[in-house]
């Protein structure tokens, strides 16, 4: 394999986003006729690396080589013309165009009067045949299954003579049969000399398909190894192996009575048969990969995506939570994963955001006591040490960490008994992170029951009394603080 030059070589590449180092001095190379797996936890830097190779983003430092020549992609289009194609988890076809139009979009064969349709359908048909697909190129993309759409994207990659094909979690929404079909095609492509970068969290898949594997962790390059030489245990260790000393561990408090009981809960299409309980003063960590159904569970408990099966009990009584109003009234708070989308109204002031869920408290006959509102918001913001010019400042002007503090202030104002935190420290700086952890710990000490969803293993391990793991919409692990290790959690999150 090493006698030919690498198609793509990435040397000492670094990239940071507003103070967060996404990639640190990463090396990566891929040869023709190789399936190269890229492995790492959520946030390890895989996506950023892919974006640099496909020209979506430019590295801060380091060099990219194409066929041994230094190169520099300023746009995805430029990378594409050099033969680099990417297929993402969610296919990005034009639903109302047919297969042929999707494959040859932007490069339709020209005829005398515009597009030469006959030639277009012939070309598309030939490509489909090459992939062993019996699809009519005149079928609209919206009528295809996800798997078929991915195959159409592969056909598109073939049509630009892709030398490098990047597949970002292509199997996450496919059935086993579809996965097998996809792998057959991937192996065919490999045989013809295409270089394939394959990202997947399903380790067993990688063993059956990949030739080599590169592991990233926290933006750093860990190792590149032949797939045949590594074991599952080694891979997991390389993915998670990091020290836990930077963490703010939870203080131990006596755990009280059960507050929330969830029995056989399910939401069609997201998760099913989930049972667990939450006690006063307890922080339960919820680990798993993105897409495992954890956020859907949180939404079911908060009523934004009500559960379709199973029961929720609060203080032993069965409750039905159909909307957030009910959840709030029952004392359930939810700090959503996406601050900007769900947590804050960025155009509103800090004070207005903090009091939004509890506005009724500041209203007499519907008229607001604006002064009282400001006062409460000031106190809450001061307590959480929000860095601001005043509570009249717009939430959109704050930094990410301070926005998260405002979101926390907002939900704490509802005085919840059960608080669900969804990725509470994602994308915020270390200092704020420690402050959030400290706050969680003292809330638990006051008797609040906390469910913390987090994709960061150190956070889960450091902050939780108990840890639940979800995979593919099911509970696949349940560990006490003492028995949990990064390896066990990762194994429960990635392997069946």
């Amino acid at each position, binding site marked *: 394999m090493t006698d030919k030059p690498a198609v793509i070589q990435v040397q000492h590449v670094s990239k940071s986003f507003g103070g967060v180092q996404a990639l640190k001095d990463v090396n990566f190379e891929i040869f023709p006729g190789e399936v190269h797996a890229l492995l790492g936890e959520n946030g390890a830097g895989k996506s950023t690396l892919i974006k640099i190779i496909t020209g979506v983003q430019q590295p801060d430092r380091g060099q990219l080589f194409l066929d041994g020549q230094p190169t520099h992609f300023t746009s995805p289009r430029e990378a594409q013309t050099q033969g680099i194609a990417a297929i993402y988890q969610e296919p990005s076809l034009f639903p109302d165009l047919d297969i042929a139009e999707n494959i040859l979009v932007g490069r339709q064969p020209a005829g005398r009067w515009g597009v030469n349709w006959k030639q277009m359908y012939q070309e598309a048909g030939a490509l489909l045949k090459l992939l062993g697909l019996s699809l009519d190129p005149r079928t609209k993309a919206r009528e295809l299954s996800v798997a078929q759409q991915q195959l159409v994207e592969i056909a598109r990659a073939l049509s630009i003579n892709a030398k490098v094909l990047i597949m970002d979690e292509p199997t996450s929404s496919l059935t086993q049969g579809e996965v097998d079909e996809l792998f057959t095609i991937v192996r065919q492509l490999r045989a013809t000399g295409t270089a394939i970068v394959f990202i997947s969290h399903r380790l067993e898949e990688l063993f059956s398909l990949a030739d080599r594997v590169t592991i990233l962790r926290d933006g750093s390059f860990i190792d590149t190894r032949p797939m045949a030489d590594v074991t599952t245990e080694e891979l997991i260790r390389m993915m998670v192996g990091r020290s836990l000393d930077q963490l703010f561990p939870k203080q131990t408090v006596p755990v009280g009575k059960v507050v929330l009981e969830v029995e056989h809960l399910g939401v069609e299409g997201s998760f099913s048969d989930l049972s667990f309980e939450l006690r006063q003063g307890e922080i339960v960590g919820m680990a798993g990969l993105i897409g495992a159904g954890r956020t859907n569970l949180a939404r079911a408990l*908060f009523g934004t995506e009500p559960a379709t099966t199973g029961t929720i009990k609060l203080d032993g009584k069965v409750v039905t939570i159909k909307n957030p109003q009910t959840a709030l009234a029952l004392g359930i708070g939810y700090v959503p994963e996406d601050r900007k989308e769900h*947590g804050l109204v960025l155009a509103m002031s800090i004070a207005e955001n903090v009091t939004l869920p509890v506005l009724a408290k500041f209203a007499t006959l519907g008229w607001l006591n604006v002064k009282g509102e400001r006062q409460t918001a000031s106190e809450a913001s001061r307590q959480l040490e929000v860095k601001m010019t005043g509570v009249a400042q717009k939430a959109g002007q704050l930094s990410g960490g301070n926005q998260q503090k405002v979101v926390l202030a907002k939900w704490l104002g509802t005085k919840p008994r059960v608080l669900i935190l969804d990725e509470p420290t994602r994308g915020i700086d270390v200092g704020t992170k420690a402050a959030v952890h400290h706050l969680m710990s003292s809330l638990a000490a006051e008797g609040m029951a906390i469910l913390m969803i987090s994709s960061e293993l150190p956070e889960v391990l450091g902050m939780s009394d108990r840890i639940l793991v979800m995979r593919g919409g099911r509970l696949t692990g349940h560990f006490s603080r003492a028995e949990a290790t990064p390896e066990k959690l990762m194994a429960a999150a990635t392997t069946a």
Partner: protein
Amino acid sequence: MITQEPEAKVARRPQGGLGQTLVKFREVGIIAFIVVLATLVTLRNPNFLSLDNFQDIVLNISILVIVALAQTMVIITRGIDLSVGSMIGLTAMMVSYFVVAFPGLPPLLALPLGMALGAVLGSINGLIIAVGGVPPIIATLGTLSIYRGLIFFYSQGKWINAFEMPSGFPELSKGTPLGIPNLILFALLVIIAVYYFLRFSRRGRDIYAVGSNPDAARFAGIRIQQTVFRVYMISGLLCGLAGVLWASRFEAAQTNTALGFELQTVAASVVGGVNIFGGSGSVLGVILGAFLLGIINNSLTLVQISPFWQLAAQGLLILLAVIVDSTILRRLQRFSSRKDR
């Protein structure tokens, strides 16, 4: 548009400085435009600055202000109400029939009647949009035609003219018991009510929350459907009021009353800085927007622009106002953020 700026850039903006004060005062651009336009028109025709002319302008925009404020509340929730003109026309017609049929009743009674009627029409819009899930532009485009059609159905194409109306009815808008015409007083009342509603009421806050981030509003336990329904009902109610005032002021109810008025209300809102994509807009801005439209209409006559050109000139000036406004705003923002570094 703060949302689209990179975080780091806006994160630490100190308070103070003229630039900052002006940026916060969103209406600065439109005021500048009004001043320039007024100066130019006065140079051509000094009558522009007379008290009579001023009162004329204010009288002419009173109804517009009332309906533009209704339109603004709808636009803040990311909607639009195209049926306002038809709702005004229909209530004007029905209320006029009522006062003609019962000349003995006090004319003041026409107000609650018109508002109730308008609220019903608005509620129908609200139901179609909030419960039926029909996009506002489609729903109100439909009711625009339906309500206008009902005017014909109800009146059989006949108009109600001044001589048929009881003498007390026109006084409803023209009387001056407090020294200025009632019409202006009604507009002031609505301005104050809407200002307090949007600024200091829970439901008013909900309107902004739903318009600027529906998801976050839902997560905060705000009932989106109710909020949306409510703005269309209020819009109908204010159109009902406007309909009564319209019939009273012009002493007539015609099949084409307030035809095309929706465009003026949208123009007043947008010129006044209301974000057409929802989430923001202020009462002061809308008043200034309506005022600017009034000045434009008034001055085009004063500087003797040919009637054939008036409509085009009006549109041109509106576009100019919006461009000047956004340019000034952007300059000021850049100016103040540059000072940070």
